[in-house]
C-alpha cells in the first residue's frame, strides 16, 4: 500500500496542474464558507438586532449556522458544493495515464492491474482526507470566531463530508476508467453531476416518490442538508438518513468494483 502511494507521490510531486487546482480548491473551501458566512450570519445578526425574538427569522433560518455545534454541518455542507473539483482532479490524474500510455507502462514494468487501480483509490483517499482536514480547520476557525464554545456535537458531519468527497472522486475514477479519454470523461462527469443527476432527481421526485435521493451522486449530496431554513426543508419529504447513507456507500462500492473489473479485463 505504502509502496503504491510512494509511486503516486512521485507522479504528482512535480505535477503543477495538480497542485494549482488542489490548493485553489482547498483555499476555496475557506473562501466559499466566508462568503456564505457573510451572507447568512450577517443577515441573521442584523435581523436579530433590529427585532430581538423575531419568530419569522427564527423559523426561516434557525439558530446561527456558523456557531458551534451547527458550524460542523454548515462548513461541511457549503464545502461539499465544491466537491466536483476533487472529482475533476481525480479524472485528470487517471486520464493522464491513458493519454501518456503510462497505464500500459506501469503494468509492463511490473504493477498488477489490481495494484494500478488500488493506487488511484489510495490517491482519492488521500485527497479526501486532506479535504476533510481543511474542512475541520475551517469549521474550527468560524466556530471560534463566532464566540461560541467548542463542542464535538455534530462533528460526525466531517465523516459525512469525507464520504461525500469519496463518492465524487471514485465516481470520477470509474468514469475515467470507462471512457479513458480526458475530454469525454470530463464532459460526461460534469454533465452527469451538474445536469443529469438533478434532472433525474426531479423527474423521479415527481413520478417515483423518493427514489431520486438514492441516485449515484445525489445520495452523497443528500447525506447533509443546510442547517438553515430548517422549517422550509421540512417541507421536502426525505427518506431516513440511514437509507441514504446505505445508498451512498453502495454506490462507492459499485464504482470501485466497476473500476477494478473494467481495468482487469480491458486491453490497455
Amino acid at each position, binding site marked *: 500500500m505504502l509502496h503504491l502511494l510512494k509511486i503516486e507521490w*512521485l*507522479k504528482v510531486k512535480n505535477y503543477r496542474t495538480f497542485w494549482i487546482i488542489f490548493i485553489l480548491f482547498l483555499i476555496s473551501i475557506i473562501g466559499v464558507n466566508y462568503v456564505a458566512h457573510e451572507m447568512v450570519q450577517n443577515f441573521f445578526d442584523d435581523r436579530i438586532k433590529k427585532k430581538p425574538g423575531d419568530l419569522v427569522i427564527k423559523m426561516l433560518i434557525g439558530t446561527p449556522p456558523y456557531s458551534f455545534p451547527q458550524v460542523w454541518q454548515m462548513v461541511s455542507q457549503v464545502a461539499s458544493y465544491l466537491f466536483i473539483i476533487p472529482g475533476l482532479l481525480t479524472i485528470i490524474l487517471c486520464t493522464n495515464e491513458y493519454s*501518456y*500510455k*503510462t497505464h500500459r*507502462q506501469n503494468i509492463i*514494468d511490473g504493477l498488477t492491474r489490481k495494484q494500478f487501480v488500488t493506487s488511484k483509490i489510495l490517491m482519492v483517499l488521500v485527497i479526501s482526507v486532506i479535504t476533510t482536514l481543511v474542512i475541520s480547520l475551517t469549521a474550527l476557525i468560524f466556530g471560534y470566531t463566532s464566540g461560541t464554545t467548542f463542542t464535538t456535537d455534530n462533528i460526525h458531519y466531517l465523516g459525512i463530508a469525507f464520504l461525500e468527497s469519496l463518492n465524487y472522486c471514485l465516481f470520477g475514477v470509474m468514469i475515467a476508467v470507462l471512457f479513458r479519454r480526458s475530454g469525454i470523461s470530463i464532459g460526461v462527469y460534469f454533465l452527469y453531476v451538474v445536469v443529469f443527476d438533478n434532472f433525474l432527481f426531479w423527474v423521479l421526485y415527481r413520478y417515483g416518490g423518493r427514489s431520486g435521493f438514492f441516485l449515484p451522486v445525489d445520495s452523497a449530496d443528500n447525506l447533509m442538508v443546510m442547517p438553515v431554513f430548517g422549517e422550509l426543508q421540512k417541507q421536502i419529504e426525505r427518506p431516513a438518513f440511514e437509507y441514504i447513507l446505505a445508498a451512498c456507500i453502495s454506490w462507492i462500492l459499485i464504482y470501485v468494483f466497476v473500476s477494478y473489473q473494467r481495468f482487469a479485463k480491458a*486491453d490497455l
Partner: protein
Amino acid sequence: MTTVLSLKGISKHYGRIQALKNVSFDVPEGSVFGILGPNGSGKTTLLGIITNVLQQNAGSFELLGQPTAAAVRKNIGTLLETPNFYHYLSAERNLRIIASIKGHGFGDIDTVLERVNLLQRKKSKFSTYSLGMKQRLAIAAALLGNPDVLILDEPTNGLDPVGIAEIRELIRKLAKEGKTIIMASHLLDEVEKVCTHVAILKKGELLAAGHVDEVLVNEDIVEISAADQPRLQQTIASLNGYTHVKEQDNCLQLFFPAGAAKLEAINQHCFNHGVVLNHLLLKKKSLESKFFELTGTVSDR
C-alpha cells in the same frame, strides 16, 4: 538450453479482425530473437500479450517459466510500441517512477542514461525531447535494474542513422553480456544484423521460426532450359549440390546454398549427358526477396 519465453497457440482478435492466429514458438535463453513482419502483422499485439497489456482470446504463454506474473515483469526491461512517459516530468524523475515500480533503488539511473547518451539532458522535461531522444529514454528505462531479458518493440524507431548504429551496437553488447533480447522489427536488415533467431509473422500467422541461418537462408538460383526439357530433367537428377528444383516458365530453377552454384560445372554436366542448354543464368537471391517470399508481399523493386 532453457526457454525464456514459450508461446502455445496464442490467438487474438480485435472485433472481427484476427490479429494473431494460433501462434506458438519458443525463445531460447541467450538469444537475440527477432520477430519480423510487415506493418500490421501482429508483432506489437504479440508483445502486448506477453507483457499483459493485452489479453489473448486463446492460448497460453510462459515467461521465465511462469504465466503472466507481475513479479516476472519487474525483471524484464520492456519498450512497447511507443516511449510512454509522464510528459511533465524530467527523464530522471520518470525513471525514478519506473525504478520504484520495479522495486529497485535509484542508483543506476545515471548509468542507464549514460548508456543511451542522455545524461546531460536528465533534468529536461520529457515533453522537450526529440523523437529520437524519447526512443533512447525508453531504451534506458528498459535497461533499469540490469534485467536478463529485454523486450524491445522497434527499438530503432525514430532514430537517425547514427542513433540506429548506436542502438544496434548496444544490442550486440547486451547480447554478449548473455542477455536474452526479444525484438520486434519490420526491418529485415536490422534482424539480419543483430538477431540469432527469428520468427516471421504475416497477418497474424506464424510463417517460420528458428535460427536466422535456417529461416532466412541465402540461396543461389540457377535457371536452365534446353530444347528437350524432359531429357534435361533426367540429366539434372544426377547432378549434385543443389537442394531442390522448381519448374518455372519453361525453365528449371535449381536452388543451391549461397555461393555453391558453379555454372561451368552445370553446363559441363549437361553437355556430358548430351543436353545442350539454351539458357543458363545465375540469380542471387537476396534476404529481402526471401522475406517477401515468406510474407507474400510483392516487392515493387
